[in-house]
C-alpha cells in the first residue's frame, strides 16, 4: 500500500519534471535567435523529457506490458532523434541560417571548401 503510494507520487513528480522540460524547450524556442540555437533548446525534451515522462508513466501504471511498450518507445526515439537533428542542422548550415559573427570554429564550412 505505502510502496504503491510512493511509486504513484514518484511517477507524478517525474511527469511534472518532463512537463517542465517541455516548457523550457518552448521558452527557448520563443527566446533564442536562429534555427540552430532554437534546435539546441528544442531537442532536449524530445529525448530526456520523454525518458522522464515515460518512466513516470511506468511507475504509475506498474504493468510489465506497459513497461515493455514504453521501453520500445524510448528506444525508437533515441534511434530517430539524431537523424532529424543531423539533417535539420545540416540544412541550416548549408542555407547559411546561422550567425557567422559569433561562430568561433566552423569545421563544416572548412570541410565543404575542400
Amino acid at each position: 500500500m505505502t510502496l504503491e503510494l510512493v511509486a504513484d507520487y514518484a511517477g507524478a513528480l517525474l511527469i511534472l519534471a518532463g512537463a517542465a522540460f517541455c516548457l523550457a524547450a518552448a521558452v527557448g524556442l520563443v527566446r533564442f535567435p536562429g534555427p540552430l540555437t532554437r534546435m539546441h533548446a528544442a531537442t532536449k525534451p524530445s529525448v530526456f523529457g520523454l525518458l522522464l515522462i515515460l518512466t513516470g508513466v511506468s511507475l504509475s501504471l506498474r504493468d510489465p506490458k506497459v513497461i515493455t511498450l514504453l521501453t520500445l518507445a524510448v528506444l525508437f526515439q533515441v534511434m530517430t532523434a539524431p537523424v532529424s537533428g543531423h539533417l535539420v542542422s545540416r540544412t541550416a548550415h548549408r542555407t547559411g541560417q546561422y550567425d557567422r559573427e559569433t561562430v568561433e570554429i566552423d569545421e563544416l564550412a572548412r570541410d565543404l571548401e575542400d
Partner: protein
Amino acid sequence: MTVILGLAAVLLVTAAALALWRMVAGPTPLDRIISSDVVVAVVIAVVGLYSVVAGNATGLPILLVLSLVGFTGAVGVARLIASAEGVRKLFDRRQAMRKDEE
C-alpha cells in the same frame, strides 16, 4: 497527486501554446519544423499524462507510433529545403556561365 498532475498539464499546455506561436511566427521553414518537433514531444507527454490520469494503457500505442515516425516530417522538410537551395545555386551558376558566353 491531482495537484501535481494538474500542474504538469498546465505546463504542457503553455509549452504547446509557445511552440505553436513560434510555428506561426517563425521566419523560416526550419524554425517551423523545429517547433513542430516540440509539439510532437508535447503530444507524447500529454498522451502519457492522460494514461496516468485515466489509469489505463489504451493510448500508449499512439505514443509508440509517434516516437517512431515523428522524425520523418523534419527529415522531409530539411531535405526539401536543402535540395531547393542546391537547385537555386546550380541555376545561378548556369546563368553566370551563359552571361560569360554572351
